[in-house]
Protein backbone atom coordinates (compact mmCIF):
# COMPACT_ATOMS: atom_id res chain seq x y z
CA UNK A 1 0.00 0.00 0.00
CA UNK A 2 1.06 3.57 -0.67
CA UNK A 3 -0.10 6.34 1.68
CA UNK A 4 -0.19 9.86 0.31
CA UNK A 5 1.23 12.60 2.56
CA UNK A 6 0.98 15.38 -0.01
CA UNK A 7 -0.99 15.04 -3.21
CA UNK A 8 0.71 17.71 -5.33
CA UNK A 9 -1.60 19.89 -7.41
CA UNK A 10 -3.12 17.37 -9.84
CA UNK A 11 -1.97 13.79 -9.30
CA UNK A 12 -4.19 11.02 -10.61
CA UNK A 13 -4.09 7.27 -11.16
CA UNK A 14 -3.93 6.54 -14.91
CA UNK A 15 -3.48 3.54 -17.16
CA UNK A 16 -3.59 3.50 -20.97
CA UNK A 17 -7.23 4.57 -21.01
CA UNK A 18 -10.86 3.57 -20.97
CA UNK A 19 -11.76 2.56 -24.48
CA UNK A 20 -14.98 1.74 -26.29
CA UNK A 21 -17.21 4.51 -24.92
CA UNK A 22 -16.30 7.46 -27.13
CA UNK A 23 -19.61 7.24 -29.00
CA UNK A 24 -21.56 7.92 -25.79
CA UNK A 25 -19.41 10.98 -25.05
CA UNK A 26 -16.92 9.30 -22.72
CA UNK A 27 -13.30 10.22 -23.45
CA UNK A 28 -10.64 7.60 -22.71
CA UNK A 29 -8.69 9.51 -20.03
CA UNK A 30 -5.42 7.61 -19.45
CA UNK A 31 -1.82 8.82 -19.20
CA UNK A 32 -1.17 12.09 -21.05
CA UNK A 33 2.39 10.98 -21.90
CA UNK A 34 1.96 7.32 -22.87
CA UNK A 35 5.65 6.91 -23.64
CA UNK A 36 6.77 7.94 -20.15
CA UNK A 37 3.93 5.92 -18.55
CA UNK A 38 4.85 2.80 -20.54
CA UNK A 39 8.59 3.00 -19.89
CA UNK A 40 7.93 3.44 -16.15
CA UNK A 41 5.88 0.23 -16.22
CA UNK A 42 8.51 -1.71 -18.17
CA UNK A 43 11.21 -0.63 -15.71
CA UNK A 44 9.33 -2.34 -12.86
CA UNK A 45 8.37 -5.44 -14.84
CA UNK A 46 4.73 -4.42 -15.45
CA UNK A 47 2.68 -4.63 -18.61
CA UNK A 48 2.10 -1.30 -20.38
CA UNK A 49 -1.50 -1.10 -19.17
CA UNK A 50 -0.73 -1.25 -15.43
CA UNK A 51 -1.87 1.90 -13.61
CA UNK A 52 0.71 4.53 -12.62
CA UNK A 53 0.41 7.83 -10.75
CA UNK A 54 0.54 10.85 -13.07
CA UNK A 55 1.75 14.00 -11.30
CA UNK A 56 1.46 17.47 -12.80
CA UNK A 57 3.96 20.29 -12.11
CA UNK A 58 4.26 19.31 -8.44
CA UNK A 59 4.92 15.76 -7.27
CA UNK A 60 3.56 13.78 -4.36
CA UNK A 61 5.03 12.82 -1.01
CA UNK A 62 4.12 9.26 -0.08
CA UNK A 63 5.16 6.32 2.11
CA UNK A 64 5.25 2.62 1.24
CA UNK A 65 4.19 -0.06 3.72
CA UNK A 66 5.84 -2.92 1.83
CA UNK A 67 9.10 -3.70 0.04
CA UNK A 68 8.75 -3.12 -3.69
CA UNK A 69 10.44 -1.58 -6.72
CA UNK A 70 9.46 1.68 -8.39
CA UNK A 71 10.41 3.82 -11.38
CA UNK A 72 9.80 7.52 -12.00
CA UNK A 73 9.78 8.82 -15.56
CA UNK A 74 8.55 11.88 -17.45
CA UNK A 75 9.09 15.38 -16.08
CA UNK A 76 12.04 15.86 -13.74
CA UNK A 77 10.67 16.51 -10.25
CA UNK A 78 13.92 15.82 -8.37
CA UNK A 79 12.69 12.70 -6.52
CA UNK A 80 14.19 11.59 -3.24
CA UNK A 81 13.77 8.54 -1.01
CA UNK A 82 14.17 9.21 2.73
CA UNK A 83 15.83 12.50 1.78
CA UNK A 84 18.39 10.87 -0.55
CA UNK A 85 18.18 11.86 -4.20
CA UNK A 86 17.20 8.99 -6.55
CA UNK A 87 17.47 8.60 -10.31
CA UNK A 88 14.68 8.95 -12.85
CA UNK A 89 14.06 6.55 -15.79
CA UNK A 90 15.60 3.98 -13.46
CA UNK A 91 14.41 1.01 -11.38
CA UNK A 92 14.72 1.81 -7.67
CA UNK A 93 14.24 -0.50 -4.65
CA UNK A 94 11.91 0.70 -1.90
CA UNK A 95 11.68 -0.76 1.61
CA UNK A 96 8.59 -0.78 3.80
CA UNK A 97 8.46 2.53 5.68
CA UNK A 98 10.38 4.50 3.04
CA UNK A 99 9.20 8.01 2.21
CA UNK A 100 9.25 9.15 -1.41
CA UNK A 101 9.18 12.88 -2.07
CA UNK A 102 8.99 14.69 -5.39
CA UNK A 103 9.39 18.45 -5.81
CA UNK A 104 8.22 20.72 -8.63
CA UNK A 105 8.94 20.03 -12.30
CA UNK A 106 12.13 21.63 -13.55
CA UNK A 107 11.78 20.13 -17.02
CA UNK A 108 8.54 18.81 -18.53
CA UNK A 109 5.15 19.00 -16.86
CA UNK A 110 4.13 15.43 -15.95
CA UNK A 111 5.96 12.71 -14.07
CA UNK A 112 4.89 9.06 -13.74
CA UNK A 113 5.40 6.78 -10.76
CA UNK A 114 5.14 3.07 -11.54
CA UNK A 115 5.19 0.39 -8.83
CA UNK A 116 5.74 -3.33 -9.45
CA UNK A 117 2.25 -4.85 -9.69
CA UNK A 118 0.66 -1.52 -10.61
CA UNK A 119 -1.64 0.77 -8.61
CA UNK A 120 -4.48 -1.63 -7.88
CA UNK A 121 -7.54 0.62 -7.68
CA UNK A 122 -10.77 -1.03 -8.92
CA UNK A 123 -11.43 -1.01 -12.65
CA UNK A 124 -14.39 1.10 -13.76
CA UNK A 125 -15.73 0.28 -17.23
CA UNK A 126 -12.55 -1.67 -17.97
CA UNK A 127 -9.95 0.87 -16.83
CA UNK A 128 -8.26 2.23 -13.72
CA UNK A 129 -7.86 5.70 -15.27
CA UNK A 130 -9.24 8.67 -13.35
CA UNK A 131 -11.78 10.85 -15.15
CA UNK A 132 -12.16 13.70 -12.68
CA UNK A 133 -14.87 15.64 -14.55
CA UNK A 134 -17.32 12.81 -13.96
CA UNK A 135 -15.63 11.51 -10.82
CA UNK A 136 -14.99 7.92 -11.89
CA UNK A 137 -12.00 5.60 -11.93
CA UNK A 138 -8.66 5.95 -10.20
CA UNK A 139 -8.90 6.69 -6.49
CA UNK A 140 -12.49 7.81 -5.81
CA UNK A 141 -12.60 9.51 -9.22
CA UNK A 142 -10.45 12.44 -8.10
CA UNK A 143 -6.94 13.84 -7.66
CA UNK A 144 -4.92 12.40 -4.80
CA UNK A 145 -5.02 14.07 -1.38
CA UNK A 146 -3.30 13.71 1.96
CA UNK A 147 -4.30 10.48 3.69
CA UNK A 148 -5.30 8.55 0.56
CA UNK A 149 -4.29 4.88 0.64
CA UNK A 150 -3.60 3.16 -2.67
CA UNK A 151 -3.35 -0.64 -2.92
CA UNK A 152 -0.44 -2.10 -4.87
CA UNK A 153 -1.21 -5.05 -7.17
CA UNK A 154 0.40 -8.45 -6.87
CA UNK A 155 3.58 -8.59 -8.91
CA UNK A 156 4.21 -12.13 -10.21
CA UNK A 157 7.52 -12.05 -8.50
CA UNK A 158 8.85 -8.73 -7.18
CA UNK A 159 11.44 -7.90 -9.85
CA UNK A 160 14.29 -6.95 -7.49
CA UNK A 161 16.71 -8.14 -10.17
CA UNK A 162 15.66 -5.09 -12.23
CA UNK A 163 16.89 -2.67 -9.53
CA UNK A 164 19.49 -0.32 -10.95
CA UNK A 165 18.26 -0.70 -14.55
CA UNK A 166 18.71 2.68 -16.19
CA UNK A 167 17.03 3.63 -19.45
CA UNK A 168 19.64 4.33 -22.12
CA UNK A 169 20.08 8.13 -22.55
CA UNK A 170 19.13 7.93 -26.23
CA UNK A 171 15.59 6.96 -25.19
CA UNK A 172 15.13 9.74 -22.60
CA UNK A 173 13.21 12.64 -24.16
CA UNK A 174 14.67 16.16 -23.77
CA UNK A 175 11.30 17.77 -23.08
CA UNK A 176 12.64 21.31 -22.95
CA UNK A 177 13.85 21.05 -26.56
CA UNK A 178 10.78 19.31 -27.99
CA UNK A 179 8.79 22.31 -29.15
CA UNK A 180 7.41 20.92 -32.44
CA UNK A 181 4.44 18.58 -32.64
CA UNK A 182 3.22 17.08 -35.89
CA UNK A 183 -0.38 17.58 -37.01
CA UNK A 184 -2.58 16.16 -39.73
CA UNK A 185 -4.74 19.00 -41.08
CA UNK A 186 -8.52 18.48 -41.18
CA UNK A 187 -11.37 17.74 -40.71
CA UNK A 188 -12.59 21.30 -41.18
CA UNK A 189 -9.41 23.20 -42.02
CA UNK A 190 -11.26 24.31 -45.19
CA UNK A 191 -13.01 26.84 -42.95
CA UNK A 192 -9.75 28.79 -42.42
CA UNK A 193 -8.56 31.35 -44.93
CA UNK A 194 -5.51 30.17 -46.90
CA UNK A 195 -3.46 32.74 -45.02
CA UNK A 196 -4.60 31.49 -41.60
CA UNK A 197 -3.97 27.89 -42.62
CA UNK A 198 -0.36 28.81 -43.40
CA UNK A 199 -0.05 30.81 -40.20
CA UNK A 200 -1.28 27.82 -38.17
CA UNK A 201 1.79 25.80 -39.16
CA UNK A 202 4.31 28.66 -39.07
CA UNK A 203 3.36 30.66 -35.99
CA UNK A 204 4.89 30.39 -32.55
CA UNK A 205 2.10 29.29 -30.22
CA UNK A 206 2.40 29.61 -26.47
CA UNK A 207 0.87 27.25 -23.88
CA UNK A 208 -1.56 29.32 -21.78
CA UNK A 209 -2.23 28.73 -18.06
CA UNK A 210 -5.44 27.06 -19.25
CA UNK A 211 -3.79 23.80 -20.18
CA UNK A 212 -4.77 20.57 -18.47
CA UNK A 213 -5.83 16.98 -19.13
CA UNK A 214 -8.93 18.22 -20.95
CA UNK A 215 -7.21 20.52 -23.39
CA UNK A 216 -4.31 22.84 -24.07
CA UNK A 217 -5.39 26.38 -24.90
CA UNK A 218 -2.69 28.11 -26.93
CA UNK A 219 -2.00 31.82 -27.39
CA UNK A 220 -0.89 33.22 -30.73
CA UNK A 221 -2.09 35.02 -33.82
CA UNK A 222 -5.81 35.47 -34.44
CA UNK A 223 -7.16 32.94 -36.95
CA UNK A 224 -9.59 34.01 -39.66
CA UNK A 225 -12.35 32.01 -41.26
CA UNK A 226 -13.63 32.14 -44.82
CA UNK A 227 -16.87 34.06 -45.09
CA UNK A 228 -19.92 31.97 -45.75
CA UNK A 229 -23.59 31.70 -45.01
CA UNK A 230 -23.68 29.31 -42.07
CA UNK A 231 -25.42 26.02 -42.99
CA UNK A 232 -28.47 24.74 -41.15
CA UNK A 233 -27.35 23.17 -37.88
CA UNK A 234 -24.22 25.28 -37.45
CA UNK A 235 -24.03 28.13 -34.93
CA UNK A 236 -23.73 31.74 -36.01
CA UNK A 237 -20.05 32.25 -35.09
CA UNK A 238 -17.74 31.80 -38.10
CA UNK A 239 -15.84 29.16 -36.10
CA UNK A 240 -19.00 27.04 -35.84
CA UNK A 241 -19.69 24.04 -38.05
CA UNK A 242 -22.42 21.42 -38.05
CA UNK A 243 -21.61 19.15 -35.07
CA UNK A 244 -18.97 16.51 -35.68
CA UNK A 245 -16.84 14.08 -33.65
CA UNK A 246 -13.59 15.48 -32.25
CA UNK A 247 -10.63 13.12 -32.58
CA UNK A 248 -8.31 13.03 -29.54
CA UNK A 249 -5.57 15.55 -30.22
CA UNK A 250 -7.81 17.61 -32.47
CA UNK A 251 -7.22 21.35 -32.58
CA UNK A 252 -10.48 23.12 -31.96
CA UNK A 253 -10.48 26.69 -33.17
CA UNK A 254 -12.74 29.11 -31.32
CA UNK A 255 -10.47 31.87 -32.81
CA UNK A 256 -7.53 30.59 -30.76
CA UNK A 257 -6.58 26.92 -30.72
CA UNK A 258 -7.45 24.42 -28.01
CA UNK A 259 -5.83 21.00 -28.45
CA UNK A 260 -8.30 18.46 -27.05
CA UNK A 261 -6.61 15.77 -24.95
CA UNK A 262 -7.36 12.68 -22.83
CA UNK A 263 -10.34 14.03 -20.82
CA UNK A 264 -11.89 16.20 -23.54
CA UNK A 265 -15.39 16.48 -24.93
CA UNK A 266 -15.85 13.97 -27.77
CA UNK A 267 -17.77 16.08 -30.25
CA UNK A 268 -19.38 19.43 -30.90
CA UNK A 269 -19.75 22.36 -33.24
CA UNK A 270 -16.37 24.10 -33.34
CA UNK A 271 -14.20 23.81 -36.42
CA UNK A 272 -11.38 21.32 -35.73
CA UNK A 273 -8.63 22.32 -38.13
CA UNK A 274 -6.06 19.61 -37.45
CA UNK A 275 -5.12 16.75 -35.13
CA UNK A 276 -1.89 16.36 -33.17
CA UNK A 277 -0.61 12.87 -34.05
CA UNK A 278 -0.59 10.22 -31.32
CA UNK A 279 3.21 9.85 -31.36
CA UNK A 280 3.62 13.54 -30.42
CA UNK A 281 0.76 14.10 -27.96
CA UNK A 282 2.95 13.09 -25.03
CA UNK A 283 5.48 15.77 -25.97
CA UNK A 284 2.72 18.39 -26.06
CA UNK A 285 1.54 17.20 -22.63
CA UNK A 286 5.06 17.88 -21.33
CA UNK A 287 5.15 21.51 -22.57
CA UNK A 288 4.91 23.82 -19.58
CA UNK A 289 2.67 26.86 -19.44
CA UNK A 290 4.36 29.86 -21.18
CA UNK A 291 6.50 27.56 -23.36
CA UNK A 292 6.24 27.75 -27.14
CA UNK A 293 4.81 25.12 -29.48
CA UNK A 294 5.04 24.83 -33.27
CA UNK A 295 2.80 22.71 -35.49
CA UNK A 296 4.35 20.75 -38.36
CA UNK A 297 1.97 19.63 -41.09
CA UNK A 298 2.24 15.91 -41.98
CA UNK A 299 0.00 13.48 -43.87
CA UNK A 300 -1.72 10.39 -42.44
CA UNK A 301 0.99 8.03 -43.74
CA UNK A 302 3.67 9.99 -41.92
CA UNK A 303 1.50 9.97 -38.78
CA UNK A 304 1.13 6.18 -38.96
CA UNK A 305 4.86 5.75 -39.60
CA UNK A 306 5.63 7.91 -36.54
CA UNK A 307 3.29 5.82 -34.40
CA UNK A 308 4.91 2.60 -35.65
CA UNK A 309 8.37 3.99 -34.91
CA UNK A 310 7.29 4.99 -31.39
CA UNK A 311 5.79 1.52 -30.75
CA UNK A 312 8.93 -0.20 -32.06
CA UNK A 313 11.10 1.96 -29.83
CA UNK A 314 8.99 0.93 -26.82
CA UNK A 315 9.37 -2.74 -27.83
CA UNK A 316 13.15 -2.30 -28.07
CA UNK A 317 13.18 -0.69 -24.63
CA UNK A 318 11.11 -3.53 -23.20
CA UNK A 319 13.46 -6.13 -24.70
CA UNK A 320 16.54 -4.31 -23.39
CA UNK A 321 15.07 -4.08 -19.88
CA UNK A 322 14.10 -7.77 -19.92
CA UNK A 323 17.59 -8.78 -21.07
CA UNK A 324 19.08 -7.13 -17.97
CA UNK A 325 16.70 -9.28 -15.93
Amino acid at each position, binding site marked *: MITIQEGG*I*ASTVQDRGRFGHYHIGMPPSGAMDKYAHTVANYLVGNEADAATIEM*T*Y*QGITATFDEDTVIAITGADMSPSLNGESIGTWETVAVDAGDELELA*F*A*TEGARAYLAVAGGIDVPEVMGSRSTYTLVGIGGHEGRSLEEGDELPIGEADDTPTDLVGTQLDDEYVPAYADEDTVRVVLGLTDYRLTEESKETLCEAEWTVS*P*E*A*DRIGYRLEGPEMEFKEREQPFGAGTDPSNVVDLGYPIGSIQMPQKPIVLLQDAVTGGGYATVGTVISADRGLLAQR*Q*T*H*KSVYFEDVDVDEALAARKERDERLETIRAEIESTD
Partner: protein
Amino acid sequence: MPGVFYRRPDPEDPPFVEAGDTVEEGETIGLVEVMKNFHDIEADSAGTISEFLVDDEAEIEADQELVTIE
Protein backbone atom coordinates in the same frame (compact mmCIF):
# COMPACT_ATOMS: atom_id res chain seq x y z
CA MET B 1 4.98 26.01 -10.82
CA PRO B 2 4.54 27.94 -14.06
CA GLY B 3 1.45 30.10 -14.13
CA VAL B 4 0.11 33.60 -13.59
CA PHE B 5 0.68 35.44 -10.32
CA TYR B 6 -2.17 37.39 -8.75
CA ARG B 7 -1.92 39.67 -5.74
CA ARG B 8 -5.70 39.99 -5.29
CA PRO B 9 -8.26 37.30 -4.42
CA ASP B 10 -10.65 38.91 -6.94
CA PRO B 11 -10.07 41.71 -9.48
CA GLU B 12 -12.41 43.96 -7.44
CA ASP B 13 -10.74 43.23 -4.11
CA PRO B 14 -7.71 44.88 -2.52
CA PRO B 15 -4.40 42.97 -2.63
CA PHE B 16 -3.81 40.28 0.00
CA VAL B 17 -0.80 42.16 1.34
CA GLU B 18 1.28 45.24 0.51
CA ALA B 19 4.97 45.96 0.91
CA GLY B 20 5.54 47.00 4.51
CA ASP B 21 2.85 44.66 5.89
CA THR B 22 3.71 42.11 8.52
CA VAL B 23 2.88 38.51 7.64
CA GLU B 24 2.71 35.27 9.58
CA GLU B 25 4.30 32.07 8.30
CA GLY B 26 1.70 30.31 6.13
CA GLU B 27 -0.32 33.47 5.47
CA THR B 28 -1.69 33.75 1.93
CA ILE B 29 0.09 36.52 0.05
CA GLY B 30 -1.04 35.78 -3.50
CA LEU B 31 -2.43 33.25 -5.94
CA VAL B 32 -0.98 31.36 -8.85
CA GLU B 33 -3.28 30.29 -11.66
CA VAL B 34 -2.31 27.08 -13.37
CA MET B 35 -4.48 24.56 -15.23
CA LYS B 36 -7.57 26.77 -14.71
CA ASN B 37 -7.18 26.49 -10.93
CA PHE B 38 -5.98 28.99 -8.37
CA HIS B 39 -3.50 27.90 -5.73
CA ASP B 40 -2.62 29.91 -2.63
CA ILE B 41 0.90 31.21 -2.28
CA GLU B 42 1.81 31.23 1.38
CA ALA B 43 4.60 33.10 3.12
CA ASP B 44 7.36 30.62 3.92
CA SER B 45 8.43 32.65 6.94
CA ALA B 46 7.04 35.34 9.25
CA GLY B 47 8.27 38.92 8.84
CA THR B 48 7.73 42.17 7.02
CA ILE B 49 7.29 42.30 3.27
CA SER B 50 10.08 44.46 1.90
CA GLU B 51 9.49 44.00 -1.80
CA PHE B 52 7.37 42.28 -4.48
CA LEU B 53 9.76 40.97 -7.12
CA VAL B 54 7.03 40.41 -9.74
CA ASP B 55 4.01 42.42 -10.82
CA ASP B 56 0.39 41.51 -10.37
CA GLU B 57 -0.76 39.23 -13.23
CA ALA B 58 2.82 38.48 -14.29
CA GLU B 59 3.79 35.14 -15.82
CA ILE B 60 5.89 33.18 -13.35
CA GLU B 61 7.98 30.03 -13.53
CA ALA B 62 8.66 27.20 -11.09
CA ASP B 63 11.22 28.14 -8.42
CA GLN B 64 10.93 31.88 -9.17
CA GLU B 65 11.20 34.23 -6.16
CA LEU B 66 8.09 36.38 -5.78
CA VAL B 67 8.42 38.33 -2.57
CA THR B 68 11.17 39.32 -0.15
CA ILE B 69 10.24 38.96 3.51
CA GLU B 70 12.57 40.29 6.18
